[in-house]
């Protein structure tokens, strides 16, 4: 256990050292999160310039709360690291990982840590707090949002792991990455009501991308009933179990065939 944490500490330190190795990399590490955040903030601001009430019952402050929620979920789901683990498994590089003094589970989360990602996450956590202060939402909404964030992180992490798992089984990760990016672009920061009913249903019950990326809009509008939480919790449990059994199968097959 302690050996694992010690290994993670060494990993973390070496990544930060690498990122801070020269002036240009520090500059890029600062510029990246700032520009990235500025674009998202501007984009949202423009929605409200085009139409002063673009979405039902959502103020700009509430939209910013949803934006920060969405980004915190994405950053804490460690997409890049799951992708890297899938790539390593596909190219048989897991042998080297198995020899490291750190569990694959933890390595999956802490494999790539860069300054810009740490700064970006910090910015969105801060943004979340500031937006909440201005959004005029009650303590119950904040509690439900935090619960949603926790469930959505597990769900997103599991969904991505399952998708990359399929990539390994079909020996083609590129198509899976592209599919994930397409579905993310389709649903990210889009309130559910903008989609036609059939598409909305598909994005909720067939692939849960709208659940992870769009459901927070219903929480800030107090539209999250029992069905809402049943869908979120149900998907989280189903996806986590699928993820667990799929990756166990993948590593069993990997170890048996080499």
């Amino acid at each position, binding site marked *: 256990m302690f050996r694992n944490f010690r290994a993670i500490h060494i990993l973390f330190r070496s990544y930060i050292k690498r990122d801070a190795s*020269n002036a*240009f*990399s520090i500059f*890029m590490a600062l510029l*990246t999160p700032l*520009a*990235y955040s500025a*674009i998202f903030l*501007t*984009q949202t601001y*423009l*929605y409200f*310039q*085009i*139409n002063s009430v*673009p*979405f039902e019952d959502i103020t700009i402050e509430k939209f910013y709360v949803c934006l920060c929620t969405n980004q915190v979920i994405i950053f804490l789901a460690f997409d890049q690291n799951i992708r890297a683990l899938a790539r390593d498994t596909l190219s048989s590089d897991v042998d080297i990982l198995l020899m490291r003094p750190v569990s694959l589970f933890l390595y999956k989360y802490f494999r790539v840590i860069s300054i*810009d990602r740490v700064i970006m996450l910090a910015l969105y956590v801060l943004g979340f707090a500031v937006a909440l202060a201005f959004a005029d939402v009650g303590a119950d909404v904040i509690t439900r949002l935090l619960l949603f964030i926790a469930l959505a992180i597990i769900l997103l992490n599991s969904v991505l792991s399952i998708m990359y798992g399929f990539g390994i089984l079909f020996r083609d990760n590129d*198509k899976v990455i*592209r*599919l994930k*990016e*397409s*579905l993310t*672009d*389709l*649903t*990210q920061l*889009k309130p559910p*009501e*903008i*989609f*036609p009913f059939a598409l909305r249903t598909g994005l909720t019950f067939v692939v849960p991308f709208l659940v992870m990326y769009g459901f927070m809009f219903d929480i800030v509008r107090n539209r999250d009933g029992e069905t809402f939480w049943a869908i979120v919790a149900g998907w989280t449990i189903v996806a986590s179990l699928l993820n667990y059994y799929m990756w166990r199968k993948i590593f069993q097959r990997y170890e048996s065939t080499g």
Partner: protein
Amino acid sequence: MKVPAKKYIYIIKNSFLEGNQSFFSTLLSLVYPLIEISGLVFLYSYITSDDSGFLTRGVVIYFSFILVTTTLDYRRFASKLQSMIVDERYINIDQMPVHPFFYTFCESIGRSFVTLMLLITIGIGVLLFYGTPVIGVMLYIPVVLICLLLSHLIYYNYTLLTFYAEKHVKIWFFGIIFDFLSGKLVPLGFLPMILQKVFLSFMPFVYAAGALGNAFSDFNLRTLLTSSAIALFWVLLLIFTGNRIWAHGGRVFQERG
């Protein structure tokens, strides 16, 4: 008779075979961009109309044009070029009797050839459906070609900075900046006028997609021709700067070892 373009046709053909090994992969390469862009079409149609679910004419024409101009997977090509530079495999291109930019451009065209043709057909269909004048429909393909060249050149020039800063040149970060400044994330017509006039009109990004998409959605021949001319100017300028960076950067990279 010697055909100078033959080698480039050969590159397109080779990349086409590599990128379209099965019907399924070709189908997916068409479906993915359609999924991505439909999110923006639904979003902006919803924002700009009072009736939810209604697709507004301007938004559909604008994004169908954006869809065609962003068909080539620029981030993929840029990442590949970056890893070639870092691993010093770019020397292979340097030693070929081809221009490095046109080599990478033809590769991208070849990989996405079927998708590009289908999306151009869809784009023309959308123009005809919404009653765009014939001259606009005729100019569609040349304008798309200019936009593809310019987008590719912008990524190419940026990626060549890898010669100086190696992996610190972040492709995914630039991709987001490019999408925003070119008008893919927010239609150009919705941006504040002062931002367009003072800032964006002096940069090449808008002429790679948004400015021309705008000219088609709110059809204006004069604006279309002016924007195309400016885009062509940027194409020539960026080919020149690309050549300079390739030559100078390659030398610096080799000297550094």
